[in-house]
């Protein structure tokens, strides 16, 4: 199995997320950056499939130079090699442009399986898997809580998470599979893995080397634009309702004023 797993470096999940004042892109300088937590499940699943069926796991990311830290984390968990698409021209790319760029790189790797997370914790668009599948011309299975690959039959079957159970969904390989957090428990990098990570092959590509034109990517030609942003208002103190026999009614009243019921 030739497995590609996409990862993204994002501002630390618990950090206050901000936009850069100059161009309203994600501010990565004022916060710690980490691997998108949900991508860890994708990497873990890719490694488990490789351990069961053999093959190779390639990590693909697009991001600034610093994103190499996230690549190294995936390599220290056990991935075999990585491709890092990085170029100043990519700065400010939106989801459409990012998917175009990533698809270009992934296509050259001829994967049997592409694994993505359901979303990244920074923008939380949750569209990259679908965009990649479309651009690569592959079937996509989403919200997988269990993945079973049958390389001989050339199929992948998943349990697709639903509100009250799951649906069994199958696709022919190659395919794109998006996984949910329930699927596994990501491993911690072993000390040996950490030391081995730096020796694993890492290909760094600029826009031109990836076969892209700088005019297709980046803030200037992005399809979506951030006009303005306001910080989230501080949390209001809650309302305490004293139950004098009418607590239920008061709660219902409150929920109605908030348009929740």
């Amino acid at each position, binding site marked *: 199995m030739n497995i590609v797993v996409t990862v993204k470096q994002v501002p630390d999940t618990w950090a206050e997320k901000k936009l850069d004042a100059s161009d309203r892109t994600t501010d990565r300088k004022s916060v710690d950056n980490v691997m998108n937590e949900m991508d860890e499940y994708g990497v873990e699943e890719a490694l488990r499939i490789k351990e069961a069926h053999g093959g190779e796991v390639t990590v693909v990311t697009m991001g600034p130079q610093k994103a190499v830290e996230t690549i190294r984390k995936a390599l220290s968990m056990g991935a075999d090699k990585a491709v890092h698409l990085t170029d100043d021209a990519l700065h400010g790319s939106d989801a459409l442009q990012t998917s175009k760029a990533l698809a270009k790189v992934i296509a050259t790797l001829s994967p049997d399986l592409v694994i993505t997370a359901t979303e990244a914790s920074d923008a939380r668009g949750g569209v990259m898997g679908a965009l990649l599948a479309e651009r690569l011309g592959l079937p996509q299975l989403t919200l997988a809580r269990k993945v079973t690959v049958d390389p001989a039959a050339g199929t992948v079957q998943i349990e697709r998470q639903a509100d009250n159970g799951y649906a069994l969904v199958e696709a022919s390989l190659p395919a794109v599979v998006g996984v949910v957090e329930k699927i596994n428990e990501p491993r*911690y*990098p072993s*000390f*040996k893995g*950490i030391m081995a990570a*730096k020796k694993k092959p890492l290909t760094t590509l600029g826009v031109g080397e990836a076969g892209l034109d700088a005019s297709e990517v980046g803030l200037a030609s992005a399809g979506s634009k951030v006009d303005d942003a306001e910080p989230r208002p501080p949390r209001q103190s809650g309302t305490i309702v004293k139950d004098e026999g009418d607590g239920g009614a008061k709660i219902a009243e409150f929920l109605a004023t908030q348009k929740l019921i």
Partner: protein
Amino acid sequence: MLDSDFVEVVGAVRRFVRDRVVPLENEIEQRDEIPAAIREQAAGMGLFGFAIPEVYGGLGLSMSEEVRLVFELGWTTPSFRSMFGTNNGIAGHVLLEGATDAQKKEYLPRIAAGEWTASFALTEAEAGSDPSGLATTARRDGDGWVIEGSKRYITNAPVADVFMVFARTDPDAPAHKGITAFMVEAGTPGLSVGPRDHKMGQAGAWTADVYLDGVRVPASTLIGGEEGVGRGFATAMRCLAHGRIHIAALCVGMAQRLVEETVNFAAARQQGGHPIGEFQLIQGLIADSATDLYAARALVLDAAARFDDGTDTRVGPSAAKYFASEAVGRVADRAVQVHGGAGYIRGVPVERFYRDARLFRIYEGTSQIQQVIIARQLLREAADRAS
């Protein structure tokens, strides 16, 4: 090890400790057991062999690196560290310091991988911090040895796969000489382990008596081969020096956690409409604990650096262990004090740490033994200079 690699190793351990182990602290306390999954994950990461050289499958951390890693381990229940501490520490080091190359090659990889849990069986009813009064004996029998005696408070004994047993092989030699170390596998006829001790704290770390009734072992189990006869005491002393800095670092880690628990509680707990941290007498307790922590951390880092470059392998380890264990005792006491009534209630972390911390002033050489080691060494050096 490359410093950038080491920073990542410490980061991985920090995350594992805080994300996986800390949430299980109450469960470990109540069940007196580390969950099997935690043991497996710790072994998978490589925690059983961080102080064992790479050539034997470990990570080969220097003392200066090891203490920085142990600061992280000290953040949670000390029984977590205890699970693999003996493999890296006193038991693994018996082999590193005293074994033949063949013994190292055969046994260290199993210890480093966590395939084996090792136990250090030195202490006896009447021989503790000073092993010179050791009563367990080993006598030659054909081409092997027969060991007789019993050991007390042996960490990991109920789960150990192998015991590093210290026994007197020459009854006529002076007290410190004539001691030899053997590597005895669990299940060897005549070796039995008593019931688990009921300890004040450190639930999840098991200790027990070990009985050696006519345990017959082949000569190949003699650590260091024939040349190792009578060298057990020197080996034990070298292992203990390393272990003392390790324990000192563990105390620093626990003190870090206790200071954080104390500050967080003082900032949140209200009395008379104010957080108690606004009261100056509470601030005094916090400042004293933070200062103890700074001093202990700086001392441990310095002692580790001097241990690595060989300039001080005796006084520094004892001074670090003495000060850091006493300091964490004071920090734990203040943590309970700042918590007030809550600090006396089961289930509150500082109550548990208060009991856990008490052991640090006792095991791997009591505070009083460290005082003696420090003073005697300095006096000996002065005498050498005078002569």
